[in-house]
């Protein structure tokens, strides 16, 4: 309440206003003063501010999470409108749906208290989603990770990541201690993890594999007493990675392209070199919104959107995006640290790790800091599933934070 009176929560909201007006204003100028762009900018700005007001007024916990996410959404939408206005409009629809999902997941998570008892539901649902993807899935650019339901395409792996975090949390919050078929839950979580990873290998979704595995490793580090189990998992991963490198052509190509993309610019190194050309051409301050040529970058609206941001908004624009994600992770860590309910704490940490690693893996890949594995940038990339999954996670984080702020007693338990 103190903070609310002091009013310091307003300042970041002003930044959001400035970003929207300047960004969309510039884009409007670059597009021969197309008024539609200005309407989009003002509309999304009003919408995001409304969401922010609801979060503040209804005392839904941390006020900065939604602000940071709004800024990221603004930057992403700005870039998408610049790339392709129709795509930008579709993204707005997804954002609208995402916000509805945000409040829904917030309410559901806030009011249900038996989340920690349902590990088998998460495992089962995840497995079903994977099997559906593998049997009914569509192949899009080398990965079989798209599912089409009633004409709408979506990527189940985005949802499974959240299910996976919930599944792990059941065990690590110590609410699931009974063995199943004489197998300790510790080993069931390990088996579940590797089952998911196996499914993802079949889909060739290397980026998500990396995210899941890193979440698992860090969860073990946080919750397991000794380091033996951690080391065992690490060894297993190392051996698998080496075998993968030796026998899977895909992985070998990715590593060799990462080490030297310049020897085969026209073919294997095409994606990453186009991305680097874009970043290099942008310089520190970028070529200006609408002045660059991001259309040369393949997959620019999803995986490579960061390269487009760097080209037109400069390395400083790119750095701003990285810092925003860093702030988002920091706020999430804070919520997780403050959570008293062990399950909420575990879910908080898991989702935080998910955000952090997902951004690190894709941004690091696009700037050739680590080998490239295609995943989306949360809140920024184009794509319904990505936006909705990000909003679900955000809703859950918000609910955890709200439970903390308002006190557990009044929450649904």
């Amino acid at each position, binding site marked *: 309440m103190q903070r609310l009176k002091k009013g310091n929560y307003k300042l970041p909201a002003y930044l959001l206003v400035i970003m929207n007006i300047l960004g969309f204003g510039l884009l409007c100028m670059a597009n021969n003063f197309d008024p539609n762009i200005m309407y989009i900018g003002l509309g999304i700005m009003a919408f995001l501010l409304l969401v922010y007001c609801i979060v503040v007024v209804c005392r839904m916990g941390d006020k900065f999470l939604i602000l940071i996410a709004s800024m990221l959404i603004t930057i992403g939408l700005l870039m998408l409108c610049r790339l392709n206005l129709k795509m930008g409009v579709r993204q707005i629809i997804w954002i609208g749906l995402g916000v509805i999902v945000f409040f829904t997941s917030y309410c559901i998570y806030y009011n249900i208290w038996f989340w920690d008892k349902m590990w088998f539901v998460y495992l089962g649902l995840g497995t079903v989603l994977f099997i559906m993807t593998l049997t009914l899935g569509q192949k899009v650019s080398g990965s079989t990770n798209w599912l089409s339901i009633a004409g709408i395409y979506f990527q189940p792996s985005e949802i499974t990541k959240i299910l996976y975090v919930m599944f792990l949390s059941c065990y690590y919050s110590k609410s699931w201690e009974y063995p199943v078929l004489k197998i300790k839950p510790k080993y069931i979580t390990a088996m579940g993890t590797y089952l998911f990873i196996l499914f993802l290998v079949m889909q060739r979704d290397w980026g998500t594999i990396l995210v899941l595995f890193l979440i698992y490793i860090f969860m073990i*580090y946080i919750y397991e007493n000794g380091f033996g189990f951690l080391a065992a998992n690490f060894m297993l991963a190392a051996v698998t990675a080496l075998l993968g490198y030796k026998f899977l052509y895909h992985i070998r190509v990715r590593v060799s392209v990462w080490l030297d993309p310049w020897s085969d610019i026209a073919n294997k190194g095409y994606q990453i070199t186009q991305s680097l*050309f874009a970043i*290099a051409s942008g310089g520190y301050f970028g070529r200006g919104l609408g002045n660059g040529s991001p259309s040369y970058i393949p997959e620019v609206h999803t995986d490579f959107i960061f390269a487009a941001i760097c080209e037109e908004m400069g390395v400083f624009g790119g750095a701003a995006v990285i810092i925003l*994600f860093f702030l988002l992770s920091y706020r999430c860590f804070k919520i997780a*640290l403050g959570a008293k309910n062990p399950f909420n704490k575990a879910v908080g940490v898991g989702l935080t790790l998910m955000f952090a690693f997902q951004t*690190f893996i894709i941004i*690091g890949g696009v*700037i050739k800091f680590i080998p490239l594995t295609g995943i989306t940038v949360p809140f920024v990339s184009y794509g319904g599933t990505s936006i909705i999954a990000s909003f679900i996670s955000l809703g859950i984080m918000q609910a955890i934070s709200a439970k903390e702020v308002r006190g557990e007693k009044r929450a649904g338990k």
Partner: protein
Amino acid sequence: MRENKRIIHVLIVISILFLSLLTYLLYFNMFRAEEVALNSYNRRQWDEERYVKRGSIYDCEGIVLAETVIGDDNSQTRRYPKGRLYSHIIGYYSKVYGKSMLEMKYDSMLLGKGDISLSFGELKEGYDLNLTINHKLQEYAYNQMNSRSGAAVAMNPQTGEILAMVSLPDFDPTPEAIERDWNNIVEKENSPLLSRAVQGAYPPGSTYKIVTAAAAFEEGRNNEEFNDTGKFEQGSLTVDNFNSKAYGKINLKKGFAVSSNFVFCTLGYEMGAEKMKNITERFYIGKDFDFDLPMNTGTIGYKSMNSSDSALVAIGQGKLLTSPLQMAMITSCVANGGNMMKPYLVDSVTTDNGYVVKKNRPQSLALPISENCADYVKELMVETVKTGTGRNAQISGVTVAGKTGTAENETEKSHAWFVGFAPSENPKIAVAVILEYDGGEGGVHAAPIAKNIMSKYLSLK
């Protein structure tokens, strides 16, 4: 709580990861981006050029040497009205194969970069280059070379301005021709893309005796008498005079005029490796400087050099290699009283309404020898044209100074060299001519070309 402690560890790890992303992004932009952005696969380089009318290139009198023409469909074409004549100075400009020579070096100027005027849609004008080249002389020199392989460089010894520079064989620089014939041009045995005047590396042969004579003057050996037996022998090294002619008792002046290998090998041998190395470096061989075109710096070629090597270097053989531009610079240095001027090709950069963006002024590059020494060598060179091997370079009414060279190489056919300047009292032009693998004497084949170029230039004034 143990978990919270561990979560903080993880937070630290995540912070390090994000920080490393930021650091790498900045590192990439600071140290790698320039090279990456200029990669020929980066299509953006051509994007910007769609909005700019590339600047024109003019000779010293305003004759158009390169221009961009806008077609009816707003397409731009680079045109070279003088055809092949400037293929080794201006270079080519192709969307497929990139740019070379001045088109490359002055790319950002030609595109008018740094011009901060705002433009909305309309075509921006790039900057124009005004060269020091005199088109009439360039054309004349080109015709004098008569399609023979080699190079001719003419410069103003007092300023360093390049007046004409021909390299042969050449190629058709128009974008269509480059794109059509690229493989042919690249694979051709006589390498037409090699700009011989600046990138060639030739043994300078007897023209290098200019440098040796300067060294001898510095060592006080200019009045010595030699007993020329026609054959220099020292250990396993034997060097004959041209046509094995023995001149008997001669001094340095006479030895220079008849180009006696005996005299100069003896001097090189006795003055030693250090002296020859030192004077070669002073004449800027093997040293880089900022020139408008990519050039070969030349080399003395030896890591450790003994007196026999020094005897060979003294007559411009052995492992010594120089470019025709460097020989023109050495000649200019003697002509200009020991002050070596920095050669340059671009006089000024101007906007289309005449505002001067950049102006190059004459600059001294080095002072390799004293004025006395330069005057002495000049005297030897005048004598060479008057009575010695350079008689074919005489111009009536003008005192010409020069030196011939017939440089042996890996083939049977020697290179024919001539370097010289005129008028010797107040040098206006210095010339270096080489006909590669010519097989003839420099004094017979190269000297008349140099003479004609000099006399043409003096008559232009």
